[in-house]
Each structure stands twice: as C-alpha cells, then as structure tokens.
C-alpha cells in the first residue's frame, strides 16, 4: 500500500504545486551552478539541482502524515486499513521513495543542464561525478525525507513540524558560531553530518550520524507510532 501513500503525496493541489515548484527550481539551481562558478562538473550541477527538492521533501512528507489528522482522513484510512501499523510503515516507505525520486530527478536535471549549459556558456563541462560524495548526499536527502515522516508523526502538527525542519539549518549554523563546544553539539545533532562520512570513517563519525538519526527519526517516530497505534481516531 506504499504506492497509495506515494500517490497521496502528489494528488492534491498543494502536492502538485510543491512538486512543480521543486522541478522548476531544480532547473534554476542546476543552471545557476554553472553561471555562478566556472569549472563545474555534471556532479556539481546535479547536486545543486537537488537542493530545492531536498528542502521541500520533508515538508511533503510531514503533510502526508499530518493530513490524516488535520483533515480527519484518518477516519477513512483506518476504516479501510484497520492495521494502523501498516499505514505508518507505508507512509515511511513512501517518504523514503520520494527522497530517492528527488535524487534521481536531480541526476536527470544534471544530465539535461550539462550539455545545454556547455553550449550556452562556451565552457567545457566535464561529465564527472564524485559518486561517494553524491551517494552520501543522496542518503542525507532520504534521511531528511524520512525525518519529515517521523516529525509529522511525533509532533502531529504540520506548521510546527515544518517550521522545525526549515529553520533547523539556520539555527544549527547560528549555534555553531557560539563556540567549539556548541559546534560539536550541533555535529552530534545534525542529520547533515552524514555527508562527513566521505572523509571521516571513524567510529566517532558514525556515532554522530547514529545520534542524529535517533534524535530526528527514532524518538519522534517512537512517540508518533505509540500515539497512532493507541489513540482513538477522530
């Protein structure tokens, strides 16, 4: 039933608007990568093209979860599928799939923009990709998508969850400037620390990623699952 949940992500006006905005911005950001800096490669363009989608993905996955309560669709959903755990898992799978789709879309955008930008700017844009870096970036996008699902479940309030997701990067950046200790704390809390694994394979680096996953996915998902499975549907 994950495909039904995937369909729910894009079959409303808000869903369609966010997907269209993400696709357009992917082109703008991918193209912008070439204009802003010389010597960009296919991998750089694809990664820039993924930025808008990666930002919007957790918003969509939050809405996928919270809409059940906001619009009382849970009554319909759980009448059709009373095994609530299956619905929760299906939403998680759909969220991860959406993250993967954004990554694949960014590769397509990169493949389209690279030759066109080369012709328009006269630059020679290499078809190079640092796959380990991009792989970790993709993992970060998928984790971000799943964290939207978890926050939606845990917070159960779309505006609050969306605000948390969108302002966290700014908050993390501000906290990091306070001092070394604060910056270290942020490194332990930030899901984006998954990208550091490209250079740092230490146990400490993996531990940081694990803590980030526990904080952003594990804890809210556990709270949300418990509530979803036990709460009266209204």
């Amino acid at each position: 039933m994950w495909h039904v949940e995937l369909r729910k992500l894009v079959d409303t006006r808000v869903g369609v608007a966010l997907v269209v905005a993400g696709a357009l911005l992917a082109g703008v950001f991918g193209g912008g990568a070439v204009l802003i800096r010389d010597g960009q490669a296919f991998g750089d363009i694809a990664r820039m093209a993924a930025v808008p989608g990666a930002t919007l993905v957790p918003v969509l996955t939050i809405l996928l979860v919270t809409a059940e309560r906001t619009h009382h669709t849970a009554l319909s959903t759980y009448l059709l599928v009373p095994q609530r755990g299956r619905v929760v898992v299906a939403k998680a799978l759909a969220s991860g799939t959406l993250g993967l789709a954004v990554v694949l879309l960014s590769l397509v955008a990169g493949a389209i923009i690279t030759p066109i930008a080369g012709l328009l700017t006269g630059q020679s844009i290499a078809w190079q990709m640092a796959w380990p870096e991009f792989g970790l970036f993709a993992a970060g996008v998928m984790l971000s998508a799943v964290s939207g699902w978890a926050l939606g479940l845990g917070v159960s309030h779309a505006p609050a969850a969306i605000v948390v997701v969108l302002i966290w990067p700014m908050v993390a950046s501000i906290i990091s400037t306070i001092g070394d200790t604060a910056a270290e704390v942020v490194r332990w809390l930030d899901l984006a620390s998954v990208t550091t694994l490209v250079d740092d394979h230490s146990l400490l680096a993996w531990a940081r990623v694990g803590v980030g996953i526990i904080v952003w996915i594990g804890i809210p998902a556990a709270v949300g699952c418990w509530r979803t499975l036990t709460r009266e549907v209204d």
Partner: protein
Amino acid sequence: MIEFKEVTKRYGDVVAVDRVSFIAPPGHITGFLGPNGAGKTTTLKVLLGLAAASSGEALIDGTPYRDWESPARTIGGMLTADAFHPGRSGRESLILACQLLRLPRSRADEVIDEVGLSRREGRSRVGTYSLGMRQRLALGQALLGDPSVLVCDEPTNGLDPQGQRWLADLLTARAAQGCTVLLSSHQLTDVERIADRVVILAGGRLVVADTVAALREAHGDLADYYFHCTVGADRTPIEKVA
C-alpha cells in the same frame, strides 16, 4: 450479524458507554437512536476499530473489525462526511480506497453513479462539495466493497428530502438482499418507517433493544416512547422553578 457484548468505554472517570449489549441481525435495518452525547458514535467507533473498548467486545460475524484482513470489502462503515481531503477530488478519494481494497478503478465510477453524484462532481475537489454531496461520497466509499454489513452514523445529515428518500430506499434494498444495516439517526420518523428493529441509548446505557412492531404494540407511537425513555438524558434546558 453485528453483536455488542457488554461494551464499556471510559474516558478517565467519564463512562461514555456502559455495558451495552445488543445485536443487529442480517437482512434487517436496526435503527440506533439516542440524544446527542448518548454514546452512539463512540459505540460505532468501537465496532469499527477506531476506538478501543475499555471492556467487552463488539463483533461482526463473530470477529472484531480490526481482526479482519480486509474488513472494508465486507463491512461498509460511514461515520462522518468530513473524512476526505478537501484538496482531492471525490473520484480520486474513491480511487485511493479502491487501490487499498484491491478493487478495479472502475468501481469508483460505478459507486459515484450509484450514490447520485455526476461524473463532473466526481472530478471536483471535495472542498467544493456541499454537506449532502460529502455524505453521498462517504456512503459511496462504504459501498465500494459491496458490503454485507453496513454501518451508518447519521447519514441523512445535509441530505435534501429527495436525498433522504433515496437513502431510505437504498438501505431498504440492501437489507432486502440480506445485508445487516445498523443505522444511527436522529430522524425518528424515517427510522420508524424503514427499520425493523430499534436500539435506544441514553446516557451511555442501553434503554431498549426490540423490534419496531413490538415497541409500537407495547407503547403506541415510537416517537412518544423515545421522548419518554430518554427524558433527563438529553440537553433540553431545565425550566427554572419560580
């Protein structure tokens, strides 16, 4: 058959439903009556697995709703007209339900026709629907699996007189085909006209569960009996004694 066995539902210290037992047999419409706050919707939520009973059990053909593998293919539940995403079309909402129930998409169109929505209305967003149209859509979802058990909570809300007559005919036809129909309603005359059995709840407790014929024979007018046996359990303001 629907069977409630000593069902109790508590919210903290408040007892919303208190040891309610009754059956709704197949091939009959069972009217489920009671004032606001009597516990009807809570009872139906327990039946349909949307709320857990504090004690007792509610069974459909001997099995709790949540233990059915795909209950909505056998049991049609309609609790509210407002369980659809307003940004999604009515048809899309039913197609999603068809996918969950592993039914062909064409079933959504069949049901849209059956509940009296036009194809154009089916393609419109639910947010643009009137209450009556949303009731029809909710009934449509309940009918998707061509169920042998139908549970409806105040389905006539927002329906015009023609819609109410259409609904009464639909439920009567379903019962004639052997379907178990449990109909919660505030429309006493409609229930008296189409139901074979009546269950009255007041203050969370069962007041009576019997056939309409037996109640008429014993008490005369069903509406008068309803007001008599629910007195003090409704929200009618109590006149101040001078």
